[in-house]
């Protein structure tokens, strides 16, 4: 008896194995014999490269992480809004100005939505834009150096969430406020919300050659919550669409009070029309105070400038520029398909998706078929703009991406699934569970006219049991799907750092060839650089001491420093003289109250050290740079404050 029982399960197992073999045989027929199993599809052999770069927002880490697809391997964390002791970003004298704001130095933010620059609706891979949600900021990261080059603060804004999405030719990066606030800020009772609070939608122009950002104008909308946004493209290029919630204008217990109306709005903004209006002198300049921080690669340093004025536009003053499209149940994601015809409102308290038609919207506007107005802005009739609804059967739709083959992929947070549907017929084609509670989904190029519909990454909000447990606090879990066939196929789970909201992907062949390897010494315009072996020196100016230092395998010049006193403020200006790929050197000073410096070949960085104790204190290189890395060290002699030892230095003497 026992024997039979034991052998039964094994028989079943064998049967299952056979079936499994058969079915994988069939899928081989569909997808080619080369990659048959999920493991083979994500396996990138040692030394081989991934097919796509994927830039994941780091959420409350304030940074952006770079992964490879399909392997799910992380290559880099790019510091943006947060201090980063790993390389000294936000600690070095050169990068501290990057984190300056009207609130002073803000060393952290909540980074949500990366978007890659485009030309004619296609990814061009020059820059990636990201938003800081908490202290409203937009950053631009250069995709040759993978470094943050520019951060602009967004005035009159709070909870910078319907951001940082770009228009078809990167004319603008757009930043919409989630929380409406008094404009200008003033001391009034919160109860005066209705009518007094405004929702600023900011259009930040991007200089085509340099990428330099400029706060061109802000559209001052009614005090709703502007949740997410996407640009029109193709025929709808020139328009921008924003979802709203809390059209109830509640200021307390929004969970209940902002869920009263059966419909909120998608705001359709004709930015071309407003641009023309402001170019002809329209709009009102108002006093403001916001930081514009620019990092120059030539000087390896950042400068922060406070800007004092912003151009605001009252939408009712520009007829035909702003309309509301009624959209059910507090829509979250606002997504536009690659043709520019369909605008999808993901009503997060609904089971259905609302698909608006751009053509129908234009027809309704031309026929002036309005259903009333809100604060002077015409509201179109729901039925007039609706292309149709997707009866998905899922719950809690959040975001939609597109594969460029006529399909859309929508995440459902509550029912925890990814649903594939046909954009034209709005029929559901496939659904796959997510583990667990998916937020955004990303298809490389998914927010462009030309997506690369091979992979989709679902970014989940809840991790629970997907990995080995690491105590109460967990990294998030992403899931990679192969979307090349009719059915979506789950290939891989991989953890992501911080809390990724949105992500942006791009074929490696666009970025990899232009990735910069070193900074050339002859291009180094840092005012404190040691560019010449003879420039090494120490200068004292009161209690400020500047050490002009250089580094090469495997020594610092100088490595013995005397004449530093307690109470001095010592600036180590250090230039890495290597000119070879991947030979960084680090600099760590005992007792420094900031971080290390990690200096790339040809780069100059500055660390401040304020010695508090008499003695002889060592510094060393933190990056294992050569066989003699351990020898890369030096000493600073610190004398009492009243000593009169002159600053001096030496190397090898």
């Amino acid at each position, binding site marked *: 008896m026992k024997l039979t029982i034991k052998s039964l399960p094994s028989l079943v197992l064998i049967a299952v194995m056979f079936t499994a073999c058969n079915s994988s045989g069939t899928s081989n027929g569909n997808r080619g014999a080369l990659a048959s199993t999920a493991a083979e599809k994500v396996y990138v052999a040692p030394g081989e490269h991934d097919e796509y770069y994927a830039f994941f927002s780091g959420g409350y880490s304030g940074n952006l992480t770079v992964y490879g697809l399909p392997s799910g391997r992380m290559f880099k964390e790019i510091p943006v809004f947060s201090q980063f002791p790993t390389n000294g970003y936000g600690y070095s004298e050169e990068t501290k100005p990057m984190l300056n704001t009207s609130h002073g130095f803000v060393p952290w933010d909540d980074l949500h939505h990366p978007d890659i620059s485009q030309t004619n609706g296609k990814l061009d891979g020059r820059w990636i834009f990201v938003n800081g949600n908490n202290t409203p900021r937009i950053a631009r990261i250069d995709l040759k150096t993978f470094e943050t080059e520019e951060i602009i603060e967004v005035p009159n804004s709070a909870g910078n969430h319907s951001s940082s999405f770009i228009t078809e030719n990167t004319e603008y990066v757009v930043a919409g406020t989630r929380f409406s606030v008094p404009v200008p800020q003033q001391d009034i009772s919160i109860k005066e919300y209705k009518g007094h609070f405004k929702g600023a939608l900011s259009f930040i122009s991007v200089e085509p050659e340099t990428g330099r950002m400029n706060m061109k104008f802000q559209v001052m909308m009614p005090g709703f919550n502007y949740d997410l946004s996407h640009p029109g493209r193709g025929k709808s290029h020139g328009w921008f669409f924003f979802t709203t919630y809390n059209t109830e204008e509640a200021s307390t217990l929004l969970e209940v009070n902002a869920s009263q109306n059966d419909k909120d709005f998608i705001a359709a903004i004709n930015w071309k029309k407003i641009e023309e209006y402001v170019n002809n002198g329209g709009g009102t300049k108002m006093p403001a105070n916001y930081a514009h921080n620019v990092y120059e690669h030539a000087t390896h340093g950042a400068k922060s400038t406070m800007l004092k004025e912003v151009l605001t536009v009252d939408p009712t003053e520009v007829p035909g520029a702003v309309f509301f499209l009624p959209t059910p149940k507090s829509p979250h994601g606002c997504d536009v398909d690659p043709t520019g015809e369909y605008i999808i409102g993901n009503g997060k308290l609904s089971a259905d998706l609302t698909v608006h038609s751009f053509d129908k919207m234009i027809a309704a506007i031309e026929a002036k078929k309005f259903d009333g107005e809100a604060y002077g802005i015409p509201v179109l009739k729901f039925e007039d703009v609706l292309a149709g609804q997707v009866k998905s059967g899922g719950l809690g739709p959040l975001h939609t991406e597109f594969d460029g083959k006529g399909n859309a992929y929508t995440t459902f947070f509550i029912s925890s699934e990814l649903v594939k549907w046909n954009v034209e017929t709005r029929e559901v084609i496939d659904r796959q569970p997510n583990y667990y509670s998916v937020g955004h989904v990303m298809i490389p190029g998914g927010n462009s006219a030309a997506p690369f519909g091979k992979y989709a990454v679902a970014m989940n909000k809840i991790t629970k049991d997907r990995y080995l447990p690491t105590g109460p606090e967990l990294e998030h879990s992403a899931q990679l799907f192969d979307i090349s066939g009719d059915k979506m196929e789950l290939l891989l789970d991989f953890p992501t750092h911080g809390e990724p909201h949105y992500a942006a992907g791009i074929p490696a062949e666009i970025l990899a060839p232009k990735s910069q390897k070193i900074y050339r*010494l002859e291009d180094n315009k840092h005012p404190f650089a040691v560019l010449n*072996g003879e420039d090494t020196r120490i200068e004292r100016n009161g209690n400020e001491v500047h050490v002009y230092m250089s580094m090469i395998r495997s020594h610092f010049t100088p490595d013995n420093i005397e004449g530093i006193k307690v109470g001095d403020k010592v600036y180590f200006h250090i230039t890495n*003289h290597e*000119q070879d790929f991947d*030979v960084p050197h680090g600099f760590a000073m005992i007792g420094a109250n900031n971080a290390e410096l990690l200096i790339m070949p040809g780069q100059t960085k500055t660390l401040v050290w304020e010695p508090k104790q008499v003695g002889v204190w060592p510094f060393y290189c933190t990056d294992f740079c050569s*066989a*003699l890395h*351990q*020898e890369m060290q030096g000493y600073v002699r610190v004398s009492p404050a009243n000593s009169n030892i002159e600053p001096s230095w030496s190397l090898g003497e």
Partner: protein
Amino acid sequence: MSTIKKTMLLLFGILLTACGGTPEKKEKFTYERTPAQKETKTVNKVAGNKATGDLTDLDNKGIGPVKNIELGTDIDQDMAKAGQALFKEKCMLCHKPDKKFIGPAPKGILDRRSPEWVMNMILNPEVMVKEDPIAKQLLIDHNGSPMANQGLTEEEARKVLEYFRTL
């Protein structure tokens, strides 16, 4: 590895000294150590000129892009000046013109090496220290400190070579 081993040995030494328990103060090592150079002298003969034993070999052109260089009879002073500027920017942290520092002194280099060898050492150091017999020996003689590839162009390396002729 060898660094780690050395460090371990040194640590051991310190431990032993620490545990020795002799309270009297010692100013110096009493343990005799052989200077590293002594060993390398014999190995030297593998490369270069066996007769002189100083790595002189004017026929070895090295490994790299430079196959043949004709030096002018007179030194081109403009070129040498440009070469000196480049030397100060890219080389001086490890090379002093007339005395051994991290790396060897370039003074009189063309009495010991061919011009092609010098340029290939500047332009292709990674391969040179692995495959060229003289460069391999130099790496050993200079404590394993590698010659850095400073990304000079062939034209720039030629200028540096011209500067070396003035030393």
